[in-house]
């Protein structure tokens, strides 16, 4: 099985598969049960003293039944979760080229700062006089975000990028309502290449989506926008740099079309990492843009979250920012928590946003400074273009071999007639020790492969990545189908049966003999 590449194979021939070991383990790849199979109801890894006898005040609402929660002692818990962690790919262990996701290095200084008791151990409803340092941190981070974007205000409370989109679009809806146009401006223009969150957000706020076609060059053109613009259009939601990895050249004219027609310009800031310190979104005519602190400003992705999505707003939208927000009153910082009597949106979340992420983001920003942030964006763009230049002879570029921003988009034209799909190619990368790139997104390109190396990769790391992709590409073109069609062979799991998972969903562990209802 291991010699499918026509390479020396002594090791492969001698190796055992999981079938052959007693435990199912393969050396350091350890199988692990669920806590429900190993834990015990009466075991606990936390020593607590039983309270003295007292008269409960629970009325008739005491929980009498067994809950069914297993417990683990501390060494058992440690080993269980360490073993699980070893089944994950991570930035700390390798290049993570997921386009549109900005998997950059997560500095550990950020983690240490976020855990200072002065930040981690303060309550959102403590008296403001006891959290002046926290409010100062929010104010300082806000200042940086406004300066880097040249925008008027920033709403800090959104909990993630999609929540930021929601906030920005809600501000737009409020602004439209304030002008008495809520009933007429019902449509939002969204390019076909947009992230799925954009149309989902517009719909959640009660707008209808009109799709804007992309040009043959992967960009949105003013004529296409002009053709759809009218008194019934509330806004456009445009990603810039866009999801094809290209800067929208005619973005200023697009903004003008929206503004002259009485609409607003929402920018999806997912790809801000390409342009920090190089271009300011406020100079482009943008009215609102969310910033993913977990992308551009290095807060950890954490296997899916938590994120953080502050939204910068132009002067046209700043009166509609949601509560709560920080206001300076001389030496004192105040928290404005009540929207009554103002144009402010109500709350979008219970408290002040992702404070833990604000600390990490500010730690990253202060470490870089204005000069370092600009350098980071330049290096991110440099790295993506280096990958492009070194692969352009083998893999097809849907919009030609021209400069990209911080990510480079290939399609599957070059795989035509090999019988190998984008998915197969990506899965074979796993056997080589790489996380796959973003696949089949954006939708406007067939078999898309979107590579974002980020500025964190050294030249040596990029060279090895490029050589690996070249080796895989030659192998694909030579027709070595087996290397791809069954991949991955060497990961903790082979391909998983997603059809089975979706046809009869098993979403929790249940005891072998389920208790009848």
């Amino acid at each position: 099985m291991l010699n499918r590449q026509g390479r020396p194979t002594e090791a492969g021939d001698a190796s055992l598969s999981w079938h052959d070991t007693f435990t199912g383990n393969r050396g350091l790849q350890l199988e692990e049960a669920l806590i429900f199979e190993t834990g015990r109801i009466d075991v606990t890894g936390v020593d607590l003293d039983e309270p003295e006898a007292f008269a409960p005040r629970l009325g008739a609402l005491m929980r009498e039944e067994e809950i069914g929660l297993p417990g683990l002692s501390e060494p058992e818990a440690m080993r269980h979760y360490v073993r699980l962690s070893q089944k994950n790919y991570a930035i700390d262990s390798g290049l993570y080229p997921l386009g549109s996701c900005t998997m950059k290095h997560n500095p550990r200084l950020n983690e240490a700062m976020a855990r200072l008791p002065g930040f981690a151990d303060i309550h959102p409803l403590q008296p403001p006089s006891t959290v002046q340092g926290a409010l100062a941190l929010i104010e300082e981070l806000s200042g940086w975000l406004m300066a880097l974007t040249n925008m008027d205000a920033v709403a800090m409370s959104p909990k993630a990028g999609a929540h930021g989109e929601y906030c920005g679009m809600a501000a737009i809806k409020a602004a439209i309502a304030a002008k008495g146009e809520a009933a007429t401006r019902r449509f939002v223009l969204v390019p076909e290449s947009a992230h799925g969150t954009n149309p989902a957000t517009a719909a959640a706020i009660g707008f209808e989506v009109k799709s804007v076609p992309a040009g043959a060059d992967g960009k949105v053109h003013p004529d296409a926008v002009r053709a759809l613009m009218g008194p019934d259009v509330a806004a456009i939601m445009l990603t810039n740099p866009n999801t094809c990895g290209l800067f929208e050249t005619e973005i200023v004219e697009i903004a003008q079309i929206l503004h002259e027609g009485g609409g607003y310009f929402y920018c999806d800031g997912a790809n801000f990492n390409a342009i920090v310190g190089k271009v300011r979104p406020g100079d482009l005519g943008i009215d609102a843009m969310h910033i993913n602190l977990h992308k551009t400003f290095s807060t950890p992705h954490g296997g899916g979250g938590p994120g953080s999505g502050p939204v910068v707003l132009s002067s046209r939208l700043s009166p509609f920012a949601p509560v709560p927000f920080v206001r300076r009153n001389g030496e004192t910082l105040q928290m404005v928590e009540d929207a009554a009597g103002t144009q402010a949106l109500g709350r979008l979340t219970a408290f002040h946003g992702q404070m833990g992420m604000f600390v990490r983001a500010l730690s990253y920003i202060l470490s870089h400074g204005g000069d370092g942030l600009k350098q980071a964006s330049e290096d991110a763009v440099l790295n993506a273009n280096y990958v492009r230049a070194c692969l352009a002879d083998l893999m097809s570029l849907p919009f030609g071999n021209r400069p990209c921003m911080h990510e480079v988009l290939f399609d599957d034209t070059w795989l035509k007639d090999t019988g190998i799909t984008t998915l197969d190619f990506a899965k074979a990368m796993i056997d080589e020790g790489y996380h796959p790139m973003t696949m089949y997104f954006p939708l406007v390109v067939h078999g898309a492969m979107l590579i974002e190396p980020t500025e964190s990769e050294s030249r040596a790391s990029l060279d090895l990545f490029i050589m690996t992709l070249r080796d895989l590409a030659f192998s694909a073109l030579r027709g070595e189908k087996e290397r791809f069609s069954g991949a991955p062979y060497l990961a903790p799991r082979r391909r998983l049966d997603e059809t089975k998972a979706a046809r009869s969903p098993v979403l929790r562990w249940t005891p072998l003999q389920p208790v009848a209802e």
Partner: protein
Amino acid sequence: MAQTRYTKDHEYIRVEGDVAVVGITDYAQKQLGDVVFVELPQAGANVAKGAQAAVVESVKAASEVYAPVSGEVVEVNSELESSPALVNEDAAGKGWFLKMRISNAGELSELMDETAYEAFVQSCG
């Protein structure tokens, strides 16, 4: 023999006496891949030609199924709830979606017959 007609969205409608059976074509199920879920309307619902009548889901896609003609849904294939794979295994037979009472038989003539549909599928590549 029952009369079967086809839409450009790859639904079929087979007239069987008073009622007509609606499903998706074999070509459509192949394009979708493994069907994992089918969302069906309530019996008794009135649907207009071209309106959404059902949703069929594969692992990575959700596609709307449109009513080929106008009418009243008289029965839905409840077996698909537990066995969505029937759509892949037997799209024209056990994998049917719903039965409807057609309100305007004239609409049938606007649809493709089998020969026209086969040619249409060829042109889809």
